[in-house]
């Protein structure tokens, strides 16, 4: 059913025979509504919540997990999963540190190198999955361990620091917008997140990669039988995920002005949670970038709001878990009605 919905939405888009809200967009509208409700509730509960610095703080804390979630959206739409994004992010951060601090490469080259590290890991995962026919769960689990180990080996289990004069921390923390419009100090990290989301959205909805992405997730066998090189496109999609993961690593290293080999474990699950909150189905064939952005924002608004209300931390985690169950259940109910 969901398969028909999605391909249907794409086709009817051209005919303009659409109600005000496209059926495929309903989940996003719902997710957005819950985000607004959350923001309203927290704003009324604490005067300190809805303030410019706090909103910027929430956006910045979304950036790293958000970029990871963007990448994860692609593989999850194919019906696969990438468990390695947390530690590949760490490895990318470490490699960025190696390039910029140890090899004294110029910052832009280091950034490209960090992103490429992620892309190569994604390429490897994709190749293992499609050529060696190892299920994504196992293949990326292995990649998770490989990346974790390599990050430790390469860094010598020590954090790598960026020299102040390279100005690397400006990548995430400086505000280009703030210089144009004084007082509107949104850090670059947030802009990079939204920029990545726009690029991700274009790839997913306007390019052939995106179309094959949905096709793979809806029915892999049918896609293969229609003469599409399934293996090739799978590798492409895992590489895209890896590229986003590399970007997340670059962002994290910039925000901390250092690369820590011990960070990153467990981030993959937060990224998957954000993707699922945004209405992407783990069984594949369905999902949007806008949904993922909203999902990631819901996660960080929720944790930030609960912290500001001084809810004990143990309970914060419980609440986030309950919200994930409710959100996914609401989506299932809505689809069942159809």
């Amino acid at each position, binding site marked *: 059913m969901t398969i028909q919905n999605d391909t249907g939405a794409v086709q009817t888009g051209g005919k303009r025979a659409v109600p005000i809200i496209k059926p495929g967009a309903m989940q996003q509208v719902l997710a957005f509504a819950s985000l607004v409700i959350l923001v309203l509730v927290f704003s009324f509960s604490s005067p300190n919540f809805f303030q410019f610095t706090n909103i910027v703080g929430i956006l910045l804390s979304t950036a790293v997990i958000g970029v990871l979630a963007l990448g994860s959206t692609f593989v999850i739409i194919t019906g696969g999963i990438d468990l390695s994004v947390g530690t590949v992010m760490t490895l990318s951060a470490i490699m960025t540190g190696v390039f910029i601090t140890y090899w004294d490469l110029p910052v832009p080259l280091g950034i490209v190198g960090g992103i490429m590290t992620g892309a190569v890991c994604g390429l490897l995962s994709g190749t293992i999955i499609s050529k060696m026919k190892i299920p994504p769960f196992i293949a990326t689990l292995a990649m998770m361990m490989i990346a974790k180990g390599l990050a430790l080996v390469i860094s010598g289990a020590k954090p790598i620091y960026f020299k102040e004069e390279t100005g690397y921390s400006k990548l995430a923390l400086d505000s280009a917008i703030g210089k144009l419009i004084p007082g509107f100090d949104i*850090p670059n990290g947030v802009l990079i997140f939204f920029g990545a989301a726009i690029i991700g959205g274009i790839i997913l909805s306007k390019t052939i990669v995106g179309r094959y992405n949905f096709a793979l997730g809806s029915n892999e066998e049918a896609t293969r039988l229609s003469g599409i090189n399934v293996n090739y496109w799978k590798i492409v999609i895992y590489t895209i995920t890896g590229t986003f993961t590399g970007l997340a690593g670059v962002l994290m290293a910039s925000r901390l002005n250092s690369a820590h080999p*011990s960070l990153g474990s467990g981030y993959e699950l937060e990224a998957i949670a954000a993707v699922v909150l945004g209405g992407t189905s783990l069984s594949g064939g369905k999902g949007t970038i806008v949904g993922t952005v909203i999902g990631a924002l819901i996660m960080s608004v929720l944790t930030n709001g609960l912290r500001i209300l001084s809810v004990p931390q143990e309970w914060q985690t419980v609440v986030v878990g309950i919200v994930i169950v409710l959100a996914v259940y609401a989506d299932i109910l809505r689809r069942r009605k159809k």
Partner: protein
Amino acid sequence: MKKITVTMLVMLLTIAMLSACASKGNEGKGEEAAGKGSTNPGAEKIYIPIISKGFQHQFWQAVKSGAEKAAKEFNVEITFEGPETESQVDKQIEMLQAALDKKPSALGFAALDSQASIPLLQKAKDAGIPVIAFDSGVDSDIPLATASTDNLAAAALAADKMAELIGGEGEIGMIVHDQTSVTGANRRDGFKKQIEDKYPNIKIVDIQYGGGDHLKSTDLAKAIIQAHPNVKGFFGANEGSAIGVINAVTELKKEGQIVVVGFDSGKQQIDAIKSGKMAGAITQNPVGIGYETVKAAVQAIRGEKVESTIDTGFYWYDKSNIDSDEIKAVIYE
């Protein structure tokens, strides 16, 4: 159908290969242990495994270097290992089990969970293997000695310094690494109790736990500052927490408005103290912890008497004394 069969086959093969590797590994270890048992223990070099709470953090690397120093000095062989994160209690228990299987002469152990390890430590005791605890203690009388920092007293000193720096009144916040480990709980309680007992005009507005994760601690500290704009001081109870607080203060452009007191060292804390972003920090003596652990283990093997608690000490350091020889010896980059 064919695909599933192939997949299954590959998985089976992988599992078979993995288990083959694993059993080979075990055999190797078994032989090694057997070899050790059969030869005259006097001729063999004394072997002391050290099971730490971690190995990635700079703190543990410093402990390791102290242990290696003592190993060299007393001509014993050591291994140093620990789980990846300080929440992996189960993994640490496995490491402890593996270490005991090698029939060591003594054992150095820093418990992640002081209760969970007791059955295995009891086994060690029954086998006559002396156990030396380090860093955080074990709730039992099995360890012959515990080489650690008095975390309660160290955190109380941090509280005194904080009170002095903010003028004895105002709101302060705390980021602690976790609420389940002995060091986390003791540093939190030591700091909190000192403030409550001695400084009635200081209010601790919030205590949050960031797992020692720099990024999470940053966002936590930012949220606390956001919720309590009047906060005057901030205590970060370990390296990751303290760096998180500094990041939060920097990102909110509140440098100079919030007094930051840290714990442990590392390059970023040292830089922050030198640049004035951080007022000062408590450092333990990690090299000393490692050294004293191995030394006590050697003494126990030789049948000499060991002190049951070895206080390895702690120091307050700030801009004024960071370059002194005494501090330089105990902080690490």
